[in-house]
């Protein structure tokens, strides 16, 4: 339903940020993101607006849980 992609914040000015994915850059609005992102953060972008900051630690934790559950070597 809602195509949204993680993009990295490269600069911020007021309510607008430059974000990047694979070298493609675009401006996104920060009007509706609830936690103010910092440069280097990944945000989920939908229809030109940043929706949420991605939690890197949480992502690592989720992966770790998979690996432990499966008795796999850590990446």
């Amino acid at each position, binding site marked *: 339903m809602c195509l949204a992609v993680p993009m990295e914040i490269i600069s911020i000015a007021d309510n607008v940020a430059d974000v990047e994915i694979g070298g493609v850059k675009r401006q996104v*609005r920060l009007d509706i993101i609830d936690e103010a992102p910092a440069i280097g953060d990944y945000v989920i972008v939908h229809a030109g607006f940043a929706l949420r900051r991605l939690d890197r630690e949480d992502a690592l934790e989720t992966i770790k849980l*998979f690996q432990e559950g499966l008795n796999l070597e850590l990446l």
Partner: protein
Amino acid sequence: MNSFDAFKDPALCRSLLGRLTEEATTPMRFMEVCGTHTVAIFQSGLRSLLPGTITHLTGPGCPVCVTHESEVAAFLELAARDDVIVATFGDLMRVPGPKGANLKTASAEGARVEVVYSPFDALALAKANPDRTVVFLGIGFETTAPTVAATIRLAREQSLDNFLVMSFHKLVPPALRALLADPEARVDAFILPGHVSAIIGVDPYAFLATEYGVPSVITGFEPLDILQALIHIVRMRRDNAPAVINQYSRVVPEHGNQKALAVMAEVFTPVDALWRGLGVLPQSGLAIAEPYAAFDAFKVLGITLKDHPPLPGCRCGEVLKGKMPPNECPLFAKACTPATPVGPCMVSTEGGCAAYFKYRLEA
């Protein structure tokens, strides 16, 4: 590999798939209610690898698919006006209204229709065309509605008087309730939409488990996310312990995105809404609230929704409720193809029927 790419890791996916196959011993029918999940499941090839005990159903998760014939007729009426530029997401261009008309055919007949990536881009269009009225077609669920709400608020701040929105926004929890309330619907579990949940959080889904005993998981869009969600579902069923699990916690906050919810509540107001295939669902849509009435295309231009009979022969309603897989519809791949869509599920690339047509190897 960065921490987010790991969610695509094929080796890890294959291990999880093995675990799922071991544990999924009893038949289970799960529905994903998000079109992006539909595509992820087909496009990654995951669907062809699922154990035979698991049946995948495609729900009403594409806001384009559920746009009602009457709503299409309303925006086509709008597009026919000389003084209007219609700004829309690309998805809506081919959605058929009465007599097969759509925005593509309207454009061929002289309507000015502009595809935009963001509702915010429609503001720029309004500024560049001061002698016309730019009307943005507001489709989408809770993920998209706050972006449109924020855009309307910006339009007011900038005192733009040639920008309007025709709101067809819809809400996911009321649709899930309507699906489960139908005694014929056959859904054992839900995979819940990741990005809608990033806005509304976990609480609005609680009734799925408490009232209907249906285990559900909010999950992301990588194969690993979806596999993990299926394992959670299989275990909840095994333990007879239905709940709503948030597997996508790297994006979805427990109580939602308060800032987005606030702007949505400020600009929109919940109303009964028409869903293609499902009919009128109470309090399932968003209209522009009174303080922002100056931006409401319905009110400003005096357009109303008129009754239009459903498309003849179309069984999208049953497909959306999980009663029928797309390929059992008598029209599937015959009268109804992506080139000649009869119903909404064939129109959008994320529609269940389009995905069946496009990705499935079996005839």
